[in-house]
């Protein structure tokens, strides 16, 4: 083996102390106002720029400007909405879920959390969320996964959606899937926590930079329901001012540093 000279013990101790301070603060996440679940039904949306239903098994693309909000509305159990996101105009900057969960110390993304790009900037804020039941770990269905009777699946939908944005499969990041309450048990195995979903859940995502999104409405492979995949409705709202004490922008030290990176450009 190659020889190795250890770093000085004082340097190691100083780095460890700094990390343990970050860890203590990160795991003790206490937002300014507790992120209670958003009420059902969702209030009527004003200033609607675009509304689109995605039939079960299909996909869509959206372009968002900073401050605009996209609502995802489920109408029945069986729909899960997978998301990929890219910055405009540099599509090499994209949703990075490993960074998103790592810097926020949690795989449970819900109201008050933010989604990071690979460049340490915030792409989207989860400003409303009725369920907290979402998946960052397992993606969607593969070629032989759950689909509609014609076997549409998340992977193929994402290749198709990306293509219509001028992108290819090299550009597909790990997917976040909404209305998919995948959790990890003590042994590391996944399970579907169905109690989190009501069937008419909704989420709102606020764009924090110019973005293009790909969204696929398919049945999650861990979802035990069967039959036709219900449609979901996507509604885009015009940009609004963000309050200085906005929950997503102030909830954690990591979110604050992420928005500082956004401001640096």
């Amino acid at each position, binding site marked *: *083996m*190659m020889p190795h000279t250890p770093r000085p013990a004082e340097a190691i101790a100083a*780095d460890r102390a700094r990390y343990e301070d970050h860890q203590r603060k990160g*795991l003790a996440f206490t937002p300014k106002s507790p992120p209670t679940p958003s009420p059902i039904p969702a209030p009527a949306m004003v200033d609607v720029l675009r509304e689109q239903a995605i039939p079960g098994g299909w996909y869509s693309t959206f372009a968002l400007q900073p401050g605009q909000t996209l609502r995802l509305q489920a109408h029945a159990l069986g729909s899960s909405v997978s998301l990929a996101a890219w910055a405009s105009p540099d599509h090499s900057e994209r949703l990075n879920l*490993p960074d998103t969960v790592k810097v926020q*110390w949690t795989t449970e993304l819900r109201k008050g959390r933010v989604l*990071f790009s690979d460049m340490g900037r915030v792409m989207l804020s989860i400003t409303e969320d009725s369920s907290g039941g979402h998946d960052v770990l397992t993606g969607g269905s593969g070629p032989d996964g759950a689909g509609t009777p014609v076997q549409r699946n998340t992977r193929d939908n994402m290749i198709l959606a990306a293509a219509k944005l001028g992108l290819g499969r*090299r550009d597909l990041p790990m997917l976040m899937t909404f209305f998919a309450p995948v959790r990890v048990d003590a042994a*590391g195995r996944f399970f579907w926590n169905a109690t989190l979903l009501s069937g008419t859940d909704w989420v709102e995502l606020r764009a924090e930079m110019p973005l293009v999104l790909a969204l696929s409405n398919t049945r999650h492979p861990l979802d035990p329901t069967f039959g036709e995949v219900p449609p979901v409705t996507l509604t885009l709202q015009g940009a609004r001012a963000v309050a200085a004490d906005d929950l997503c922008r102030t909830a954690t030290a990591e979110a604050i*540093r992420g928005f500082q990176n956004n401001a640096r450009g």
Partner: protein
Amino acid sequence: MQIHDIPAEKPWSGIVLKGQTIRIIDAYGQQAIDTIFYNAHDHTERYSAQDTMREQGAAYITKGTRVMSNDGRVMLTITVDLSGRHDTCAGCCSCESNTVRFGEGTRHLHACRENFILELSRHGMAKRDIVPNINFFMNVPISPNGAMTIDDGISAPGDHVEMVAEMDVLCVISNCPQINNPCNGFDPTPIRVEISD
């Protein structure tokens, strides 16, 4: 047998042919080894963390894990694991994510993504080709309540994993230089890769 000694903080890449075994050795213990696999003949087919986790129904990489591609095909199978558990949720470190995690003062510390960009550039690839990787010998427990944290590594000096290639693969490694968390025991060390028929 090929032997590749990889210095601390450095990248490496090499081909593993179908049927060959690659052994990755954590020579000094507690060293995260960030690893991505690509189909050697079509780099657009590459390691997929989500396909790998979903297919095995569990979050951690260990003996028996089938390393899956974005086409849902098995790239390699893990046949030996002396350490017991490896991460594939936390991705690689970067200068940019370090600023979010540890503050702007860490922007100019070396990071795995710098390694990956430079090593991939030798194969005609770029930043967009860096997919979420396997972190061999990195300990990232996930709690049932979703909490996740990078804890002290559990690997001892000389621990290794072995994988049998199920297709010809390009293996790209960043020997992690991170000193802001315990993934390398705050002291990045050299590693060894062996490839045998």
